[in-house]
């Protein structure tokens, strides 16, 4: 799906280039044929020149954009390669260790735990990538059912506490009145847990995350507030773009594929809601919002 999109845009630029060249040709032929009619020539010349110049500018802008997108895609492939290969390397290392060495009972149990964590990490990356593929088809039917959002959030919070071994007071949940939404359970679960995972991931060592749900008019709003690294104002919208990761040293310190928030935003849109972020800037923490319509 991604490849055909790229090919289409390349084809467009080739066609555009050919178009521009033919304009130049028309200009030349016009020059020869209309040489005797000076007034018409001047007007036509200026007109064609303006077309060429604006065309070239447009072309350059689009090309730069395309190159940027390619770079982002390369960074994404690197990140996914790393996220897929690292857990496999780890599992393999421990399996080989167990196979070739005498390992006492306690160590053996620890190794099993590590391998389980690695397989979870591997599965999470695979699901993220597969889900992004499905997000591309916007019209694809959702598997709608009536769900209690607070219950779902509660479940995701409990799961995050267990996986990252976080004390309940460091990751708190404050549910509003119970509300049901009509939604695809798997998709909303992915969006909710992505938001919670991110808040934990970007908090560093001192996790302090507050998750809330609240009903406002016809919508239910989920708020995830962390005291982590924060987001520069210019990046608040961009973080939801596919493959986008905030540039700088942080991207290499906290590993990720750049898909999580794209999934959150896509899920929100597909359910008639929206997702956005607020932050006072780097170092001031950030708050993420997921707003979904209440079931009628």
């Amino acid at each position, binding site marked *: 799906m991604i490849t055909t999109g790229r090919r289409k845009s390349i084809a467009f630029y080739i066609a555009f280039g050919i178009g521009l060249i033919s304009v130049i040709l028309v200009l030349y032929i016009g020059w020869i044929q209309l040489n005797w009619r000076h007034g018409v020539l001047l007007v036509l010349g200026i007109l064609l020149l303006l077309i060429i110049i604006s065309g070239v500018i447009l072309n350059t802008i689009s090309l730069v954009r395309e190159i940027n997108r390619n770079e982002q895609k390369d960074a994404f492939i*690197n990140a996914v390669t790393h996220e897929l290969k690292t*857990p496999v390397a*780890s599992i393999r290392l421990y399996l080989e260790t167990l196979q070739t060495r005498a390992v006492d009972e306690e160590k053996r149990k620890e190794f099993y735990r590590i391998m389980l964590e690695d397989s979870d990490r591997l599965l999470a990356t695979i699901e993220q990538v597969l889900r992004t593929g499905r997000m591309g088809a916007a019209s694809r039917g959702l598997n709608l059912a009536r769900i209690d959002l607070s219950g779902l959030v509660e479940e995701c919070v409990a799961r995050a506490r267990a996986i990252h071994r976080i004390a309940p007071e460091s990751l708190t949940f404050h549910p509003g009145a119970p509300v049901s939404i009509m939604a695809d359970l798997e998709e909303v679960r992915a969006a909710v847990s992505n938001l919670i995972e991110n808040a934990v991931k970007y908090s560093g060592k001192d996790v302090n995350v507050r998750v809330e749900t609240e009903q406002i008019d016809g919508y239910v709003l989920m708020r995830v507030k962390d005291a982590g690294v924060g987001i520069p104002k210019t990046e608040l919208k961009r973080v939801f773009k596919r493959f986008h990761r905030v540039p700088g*040293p942080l991207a*290499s310190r906290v590993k990720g594929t750049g898909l999580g928030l794209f999934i959150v935003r896509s899920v929100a849109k597909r359910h008639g809601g929206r997702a956005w972020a607020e932050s006072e800037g780097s170092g001031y923490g950030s708050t993420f919002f997921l707003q979904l319509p209440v079931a009628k």
Partner: protein
Amino acid sequence: MNQILVVEDEQHIADGLRFNLEAEGYQVHVVETGEAALELLQAPESPIDVVVLDVMLPGKDGFAVMSELRQGGQFVPTLMLTARGHPEDILKGFAAGADDYLAKPFELAILLARLRGLLRRRDWLRTSLNHSVAKPEPTDTFTFGDKSVHFDLLELHVRDKVFPLTLMEANLLRYLIQHEGRPISRKAMLEEVWGLHEDTDTRAIDNFIVRLRRYIEDEPVRPRHLLTIRGVGYRFVAAPAAK
């Protein structure tokens, strides 16, 4: 006991490597960042015998760490370990100064064998170096012109001035003096003086030569003792012809 430094930020892999390397009888140090690795390896008299260096590190990446080490004259045998197994990544690793390169996921037995290989090569070169460099030397002082090198004191005396030499500078000078009059390639110097082989950035040698010239040449820009042989390396001349 050989000491291994593992530079790896993925805790699971670092722990797994530590367990296996300790089982093989190595003393293992683990650091999570390139900066910490540089600090440990650039310290004088670093005890590390061999390094396992991951590429994707927070902050400075493995390639940057590798080239910084080599440029600073730290030639400890290093195996780079990374998820990126593309040929261009491997070439980049070697260009930065790695001795060996392994893509993740790796086979444990192969990793261990390669580390043993790096240590063995280092030991062999060390032995051959002791034979070739240390033996034919009757006294630990060499005098040329109004300069004298005191290898035992790591000092260079030029008229009434005394310059302290580092061990590597002294070893390089000794090697050049022993081959007086003959051109010596950069590669030979790396192999014989530093005990390194292949793929190391030979430009590091040039920095040493620049420093030595500052000591032993009256005019470092117009060297008379330590001559550049274009395309080959260097030649030491104890008694240059009169100007």
